């Protein structure tokens, strides 16, 4: 199954730019299409489409979510086994192993390095065999941004 784009699409191209699988094509200002053989059902197109023109694999309409509201992975180091499955599962490559740890000869753990690139697909969490990756809205960053605005 694959995500699909309805005739509501006005061809803004936001979904195509956001698609990590390069599965979306179409001319500017013309309705876009999703190549079902390439679609990985990450939902990035649905979250970004301002016209609710994307249907998910079950045919339900996707709602646009503000970028700041996208879920981001949080890694629970106490249960992480450093197997690297989450890093491999990430379709945009925003998770990486920590830089050289301060203590010698210990495991390096994954962390979200490129927050902006994260599309909130949750594949890292879905694939983690020990449930060490939790998807949540990054609260702290939101607070900082909010206080920054009010000031």
């Amino acid at each position, binding site marked *: *199954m694959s995500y699909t784009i309805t005739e509501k699409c006005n061809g803004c191209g936001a979904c195509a730019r956001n698609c*990590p*699988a*390069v*599965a979306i094509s179409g001319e500017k200002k013309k309705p876009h299409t999703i190549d079902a*053989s*390439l679609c*990985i*059902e990450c939902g990035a197109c649905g979250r970004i489409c301002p016209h609710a023109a994307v249907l998910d694999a079950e045919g339900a309409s996707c709602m646009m979510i503000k970028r700041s509201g996208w879920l981001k992975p949080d890694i629970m180091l106490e249960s992480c*086994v*450093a*197997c*690297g*499955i989450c890093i*491999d599962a990430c*379709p945009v*490559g925003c998770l*990486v192993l920590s830089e*050289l*740890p301060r203590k*010698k*000869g*210990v*495991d*390096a753990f994954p962390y979200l390095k490129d927050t902006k690139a994260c599309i909130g697909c949750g*594949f890292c969490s*879905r*694939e983690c*065999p*020990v*449930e060490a990756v939790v998807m949540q809205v990054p609260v702290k960053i939101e607070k900082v941004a909010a206080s920054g605005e009010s000031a």
Partner: protein
Amino acid sequence: MNKPYMGKILMVDLSNQTMTEEAIPDHVYEQYLSGMGLGAYILYNRMPAGADPLGPENILGFCSGFLTGTGSLFSGRWTLVGKSPLTGCWGDANCGGTFSPAIKHCGFDAIFFKGISPKPVYLYIKNSKATLKDAADIWGHDAVETEEILKQQYGQKAAVAVIGPAGEKCSLISGVCSDKGRIAARSGLGAVMGIKRLKALVLDGVQQIGAHDPAAMKRLSRHCAKWVRMPLPLTSGSVFARVGSFLRVTPVVFPQDGLLYANILKKWGTGGMNQASIEMGDSPLKNWSGSNRDFPLAKSKKINPDLIKNTEIVKYHCYSCPLGCGGICATKGQHAHTHKPEYESILALGGLCMNEDLDSIFYLNELLNRAGMDTISAGATAAFAIECYEKGILTKEDTGGLELKWGNTESLVALIKKMINREGIGDLLADGTKIAAAKIGKGAIEFAIHAGGQEPAMHDGRNDPGFNVHYSLEPSPGRHTLGAHLYYEMFQLWKCVKGLPRPSLLYTKASKYKINPEKAQTAAACSKFMSLANGAGMCLFGLFIGVKRVPTFDWLNAATGWQLTPEEYMAIGERIQTLKQAFNIKHGVEPRDNFISSRALGKVPQTEGANKGRFVDVEKLAPGYWDQFGWDTTTGKPKEETLRKLKIK
């Protein structure tokens, strides 16, 4: 999406630069899984009999593991397959890193290459779209440099497999590298890639890998992780040397539990057992002629596990590995960062050449990784050359002025550099011991320790007779990762598979050398299980923890929904093993020719040390092993009825 395999392979014909995607029917996966099984299926059916390993008809395959990416642990191994130019037999090499899932993310279970490219090329796959690109700019660079160049161009997320200069120069002991120092080294398949003028594969895909029951996969993985992370109080690496000495002198031993090994691997890596191994007689020394007396504790303490661990900055895990036996080290030498040398490398470049200089081992390990040359075969060939020099078969003139003496570190480094560059004597030695001995003549073959042309690993079959069985009788001779007496104890297969014997709680060492039907049964069980595991992409070190704790059979059921019994999965392993043997027979291999050199069998038994008086009679062991698979007990050829029963024919 809910199948663990992608159902497709990519066949690249380098001669006319064409690429074909092929759908593989489900029944192939049901019979052979993917990984090595799928590789054997394609090679057996597509390669014409008698194909020249270095000719256009040889097929080189990069096969991802069946369980890779399904939520299982220890399942990130990929298998490189092809007809080995080193042995002329079935050839495979196994490697970890991150390359196995990358093949599946591109939408394929395996990528095969045939033909010979008119000019150097590399394969680039982005989102299931494959292109062959000109490799003129990267040809000649070493494996690490090439990977850095390609990753700079295509992004850090791309997975890269490359050959180094050794593969380009068609050294028959070269392999294929990935992750800057993980190497699919055995069977000389780097030379096949080199002769095909294929420099690298760059894979960058995002296709998702499914499983029939993801929740069950996770449940099993959590069960497995619990065992792997169970800490045992292990303090100092030098303790193992004492344990090794004890194991040498005690006449009675007990079955080993792999949980201990897992903890050693986690803390020190594979090198954790090097000193113990020398002490107990597991590691061959002085080109298989020496014993622990030639390399006593005073010497081996210079390469002890703690010294290696001290250089480690951070642990290295292959994909889906909770153990992390690898490491990245910082050393004083020319290369600031290097992969921690593995047990095999340390002893092949150390004890086997009587070299006790740890810095040189680090340096040579990195040098060989960059060149894409097998450390086991390179060390063994150097040891062979040293013995030839000591015995007067090679002269100073032959070696280009090198003083090839036991323990002469400087000349060892110079010799290996020559082998990598194929200069002078190095050109002669770059194809392994058997070919070098044939070229030298003068009785040098006596000192070439090989099985079917391949140098055996640093586990002495005189100490664990199981190793000699597998070195000699496997379709890919000289390999140490397929079975041994010790492996059988640690796999604990009898806990799952009906009819397999449980080892007794205490037994005498001498009983290991008695030839009886039980030995044949356990050796065959190891071969079947490892063939299955190589199809599944499982790591040997994970399997050491025990089949109940690292639940391979249950993962396979949860990933596929097949609900087969362990016995039925073992039958899949048996089928893969027989197919590999049938491949050899098709290509005119006589299984008897692959028996390991007589020195390694102890035909003239050692007079001192741990393996004093030990002789392993492979001639007598072979019929029993072959019979377990339904192969002819005198020739080792699979019987017609066996091939029909297994649906190979």
